[in-house]
Every structure is written in C-alpha cells, then in structure tokens.
C-alpha cells in the first residue's frame, strides 16, 4: 500500500461520505422545510392546503373560544390587515394571550382554517417572535412599543 494509493482511497471515501451527506440533505430539504407565512400572505397568495407551515401574528382580541368540555381552542391570528382562523387541541403555552404575538405550526385545511399541531411559546411578556414582528412590519401595523426587547 503506497502513500499514493492510500491517499486515493481516502479521497474516494471522503467523496463518498460527502456525496451521501449531500443526497441526504437535499432530500430532507425537499420534504421537511417549513415555510413561514403571515396572515396576509395566506389570504392573498392562496397557499395550497395540506402543506406543513408556520403562521404568525397577533391573537385577535375577542377571538379566543373554547369548546365546552374539550381541549379544542379556536382563535384568529391577525396581522391587523387579514386574519386566519386557527383550531388547536391541546395545552396552550404559558404566555398565550389575546392581543399578543403567537406562532403556530400546522396545516391549512380546504376551508382555509389553520389546523395547528403546535402553538409556540414565548419567553417573556415583552418578547415578540421576530417572524411576527416582520409580519406586522409588512402589514404596516408595527408599533415599536410592542417589541421593546427586540
């Protein structure tokens, strides 16, 4: 086994490993990347249903409803131009409030209702998820007060 042969084997092995990794990464990118949309984008761009995605905005004041005797919760996520209805069954994060920022992960159903599988927590009162801040900036309703910690 000469040095040259060894180097050749090593390079071959390295390219094989890199190739496998690239293939894995590319196929995973196709299937498992989750895009984020603001309520306006969902309404205006007619996003097709049944694709995993995240939406974010404010929980519309007065929209939170809880079904009697079940865990089902309905609310609307708004960027103050458009609002999207959301249904979620489960335990809400600690700081989920009306009028506060929220990010939900899930899928749109065929009637344009967002079925959330996960509602994401935030860490403190003043914190605004950056995606939500951007969504509000895009809709022109961003107030600096809401994002003092950002």
């Amino acid at each position, binding site marked *: *086994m000469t*040095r040259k042969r060894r180097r050749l084997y090593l390079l071959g092995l390295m390219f094989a490993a890199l190739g496998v990794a690239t293939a894995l990464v590319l196929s995973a990118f196709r299937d*498992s990347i989750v895009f984020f949309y603001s309520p306006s984008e969902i309404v205006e761009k007619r996003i097709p249903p049944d694709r995993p995605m995240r939406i974010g905005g404010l929980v519309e004041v007065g929209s939170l409803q*809880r079904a009697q005797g079940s*865990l089902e919760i309905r609310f609307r996520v708004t960027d103050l131009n458009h609002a999207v209805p959301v249904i979620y069954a489960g335990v809400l994060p600690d700081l989920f409030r009306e009028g506060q920022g929220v990010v939900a992960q899930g899928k749109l159903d065929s009637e344009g209702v967002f079925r959330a599988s996960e509602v994401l927590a935030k860490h403190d009162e003043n914190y605004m998820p950056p995606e939500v801040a951007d969504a509000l900036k895009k809709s022109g309703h961003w107030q600096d007060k809401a994002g003092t910690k950002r």
Partner: protein
Amino acid sequence: MIAELGYFALTLAFMVALVQAIVPLAGAARGDHRMMALSRPAAFVQFGCVAVAFAALTHAFVVSDFSVINVAQNSHSAKPMLYKLSGVWGNHEGSMLLWVLILTLFGAAVAACGGNLPASLRARVLAVHAMIGAAFLAFIVFTSNPFLRLDPPPLDGNGLNPLLQDPGLAFHPPFLYLGYVGFSMAFSFAVAALIEGRVDPAWARWVRPWTLAAWAALTLGIALGSWWAYYELGWGGFWFWDPVENASFMPWLIGTALLHSAIVVEKRDALKSWTILLAIIAFALSLIGTFLVRSGVLTSVHAFAVDPARGSFILAILVVAVGGSLGLYALRAPQLKAGGLFAPASRESALILNNLLLSVAALTVFIGTLYPLFLDAISGAKVSVGPPFFNATFLPLMAPLFLALPAGPLIAWKRGDIAEALRRLRFAAVAAAGAALGTFYLLDGRSLLALGGLALAAWLVFGALAELGYRIGGGRLPLAHALARARGLPRAAWGMALAHGGLGLAVAGIVVSQVWQIERVVLMRAGDRLEIAGYMLAFQGVTRVAGPNYRAERGAFDVMRDERIVTTLHPEKRVYPVGGATTTEAAILTTGFADLYVVLGEADAPGAGQPLNRPQAAIAGPDAAWAVRAYWNPLVPWIWFGAVIMFLGGIVSLFDRRYRVGAPAPARARGPAAIAAE
C-alpha cells in the same frame, strides 16, 4: 468602589494579554529566552486580574448592589442565594466574564504545568492563547462592561428570567464554557505548532488531555441543558434540534473527532495536518456557537444581547481567528511530514472512518442550522428547519458510525484483521440480535427505527464490555489472573470502555423514549382519574401557594398502582411578579427506567364556550376543569445516565498516567508489549 476595582482589573488584564500576545511570540522568533520566559508570569497575572474582576462582580450580585446596572437588571433582593450567584453568569456581560475567567485559568494552568514543553512551543502557545484572551477582554471592556453604574440606584432589581432560576441551569453555562474554552487550548496548540512547523507525538500528548477535558465538560454541559429543557419547558422532550442546541452540539461532534484523531498522532505519528485542521474547526465552531447565541441572530433564552455592535464584534473575532488560522494552515500544513503507513484494515483506518462520519454529520447539522439565516439574508423568506430534517440527515450517518464503533478498538494498529475483531465481538452480536428480536416481538415489526436503534444500542454496550473482557483475558485466563490484568489496564482503556458503553445507554434511552412514549392531553376536574401506562392519576384539585419570589397554582395528583397510592405529584404554574413571567413546572416520578411526567395547563373558566379572556384572570373555582398533559417516558433517564457515564469516561481517561506531568517519554521508548496492550 469594588465595581470600579473590578473594571480596573479587567482593563489591566487586557493590557497584560496584549503584552503576552506579542512579546513571547517575538522572543520565540528571535530565540530570545528572556522574552519567551515572560509568557509564564504574564499568564498568571492575566488570570489573577480576571479573577479579581469576577470576584468584584460576584460581590455586587451577592450583596445586591443595585447601583450596578447589570445587577439591577438581572438580580433581585428576594432571589435565593444560589440564583444570585448563578445570576452572575445568567446575563450577557457576566457570562462573557465567566468565559474569559475560564480561558485565563487554562492559560495559567499551561504556564504552571508546562515545565516539560519545549520553551519556544510553550511561549507560542501562551502567546496565541493570549491573543484570544485579548480579543475577548477587549469585547468586554469596549462593548459589554458589566460594571457600569446606575444613578440613582433603583430600590430593587428586575430579577433573573424565571426559566433560568433552576439548579440544573445554574451549572449548565460553566460546563459548556469549560468545553468551548478547552477547545481554545487545542486551537492555541495547533496554531503554535503551525508557527513552529512541527507536530510530533509529544505535541499530541499535550493536546489530548485538553481536548479530553473540554469534551468531557461539553458532554456534561449539553446533558445538563437538555435535562433542563426536559423538565422545565414542559414539552416532555429532551432535544429539539433548536439552533441554540445545535450550536453546542457541532463543537461536540468535531471535538469527538479531534479526540480520536489526536490518538493517531500520538501513537502512530500520522494524520497530523488533519488533526490540526480539526483543532481549528472545533474552536471555530465554539466561536460560531457563541456568535449565534449571543448576537441575537437567533432568538431564545440565550439571546441576552441584541446590540448590533456586540454581534459585529464577535463576528470580527470569528473572522480573524478562523481566517488567520486557516491561512496559516494553508501555508504551513504541506510542510508537516507525513506519518507512518497503514493498511486499509487497521486501527488508523477505523479512526479515519470515525472522523469522516463525525465531520460529515457535523456538516449536515451546520447546514440545517444556518440555512434559515442564509435564506432570510438572501431572499427574505422565513423557513424553519426542524427535527424532521435532522432525523433524515443526521441519524442515517450515525448508524454506520455505531455499527463500526465496537470493532475499532479491537483492530490492531498498522495492519489488522477485521474477521478476528468480529470474532471477539460475537457475544455483542448475539446481544444485538437478541435486542432486535425482542423489539420485533414487542412491536410486531412495526418500527424499523426501534429495531435498528435498539440493536445498535446493545451492540455498543456489549461491544464495549467485550473489548474490555478481551483485554483482561476473560474466559481464556483464570479469574484471579484476569482481575489482576483488569487492575493493570491503563486508565485510558477504562475511560474508552466507559465512554463507548455510556453512548450505548444514551442511544437506548433515546430510541426507547421516542418509540414507546405515551402522551395524554385531557381536561380534568378535581376527582377525575386518568389511566396511563399502568398508573392511575387521581386529580385532587389545585391550590394556591406562595414561593420565595413567585406565586403558584399547584396541582395535586395521587399516583396509584393497583389501587395503592405510590406518591403524589405536584405540577405547578408559577407567576413571577417581578418581570411578570409565567413558567410551567412539570412534576416527574422516575423509577430510573421510566418517567411519569405531569404538566398542569390552564383552567377552563366557568361558563366555558363563551369567548373568554386570559383564563388566569378568571378565578378558577373548585369545579373548574384543567387541561392536563401527562407523559410516560420509558428509559428517558438513561439518556442523561449515559451522558454522565461518558463524562466519567473522559475524566478517567484524563488521569491516565501517560498524561501525568513529567510522564515518561513517548510510546516508542516502551516495549512492544506495552503498545500491544493499548
């Protein structure tokens, strides 16, 4: 006054670091022994100054000196003493000070124990180390001064983020930093060796203990962080592939690779330039980790600082350190003499495979972590790359690694016999097959992941045992003789078996908890019962209690098995009036083999079905229904149990006699018997 003293000590440390970075380097270039000798006292003085500054900040936190902005913003007089102390590093400025404290401590340690290093190498190592120190001290002094005053001082402070008020998290940053900073030592040695133009086994014997210590500390730091996320965030999971987690995981992966490739340099004088490259990358990833979590690019509990100046400063340090060292590498690496030859079937090749798979795995994590930032920067599209991505890329790369792992230590250096190694592993193979069959039987073959995962876990654990058994001659030699050989085994051998076996236990914990986890989310009223995994949870209602610095709603759940009460679990929702944050405290019953995990959600107010405001504002009556989330997490404790065993393996290996100060000369000097035993 004490705060000013601290600031003064910090600036002094910066000056000393500058001198230490320049003079010994120039001295080493000119062969001037007096200039080189300066590096040792300078390292001690630098550490002393930083220690004084750290003590001054700790003092301000302990006595709650709210005239210091940092204390006013991050502490509160009503906080328990442990969290006043951990508050010192529970904020941006203080955590950077802790980072520098550990950095200078390691520098002083090299100066103290480095008596047997060649004078020029020691001077260069300490000079490179001082450059890192100077950069971070400048960062603190110019952008993140922890000693700024506030006038007039407030009556009380803002308190520490309640999520961080936790014993597990109090020690998470120090261990993580011990790891990150430990890699800075390997980095300094690598750059010094490049300047020197020489890498030999003696160099590797110096680098390996530092890498080992850093790796062990990082292992424990990551385990503490994940344990905290498990019981504090109340989601029942232990690893979320969150960018912040990945930021500490990438240096760990490359550090693990470095740990193994340094063995090849030490024993066989081969893979030298690759090892140097790994040392540079491990530290670069530590810096990237610091940049990601500290700059506010990512939002999380860790993002204290959202001052753009700070982000750019760390980015500048990163660019200079990585660019400079890689430039030097490109210039000098070709001059390093290539080492000994080896056959494709050899320990060297096994370790190369380990390195290759670990590096490529780290690369996929890197891509997944940075892709959203990259996409946001170029197109403004917001995406999130979550667990599915990492499960699809990272896990397939781990399978061959774990498959090959037990065989590696059984193959001889230079030219080995794979068939022979596999024969020695036959019992491990039987155990793995047994685990696979058992899983198949339990699951009716439904989950390939569980089947393969558990077989690999058994393969790892029993492979480590088989390797240990082979070395002491178990089965071939009489018991007394085998025990004598066990005592005589080098500590590094024990450490390796522990680390590999611990990995197997952690893999078992991860696989089993993923496949057999049971989750129940229900509404419960006082008196209701919930059946989960053979346990009956009887809800006794919720009471209000007051903690030292919070108010809580505390649920009571009697845990029953066969109609007998085993224990009572008390999950809580806490409100911290200072800062107004709410946290969820999960209640966990653990048997060592499984956890019963209960989280209290929000209450259903009277008149449900109507639009309701924040449930907490409504007063929950005695007949209110509460959202309750319960998990049965089998084998989850083994994840941390395994991580602690890996940590212990690192520590045991660290005390191997060949790393002892003044240890006898390189392996070459010892007889062939000694080499064969390793």
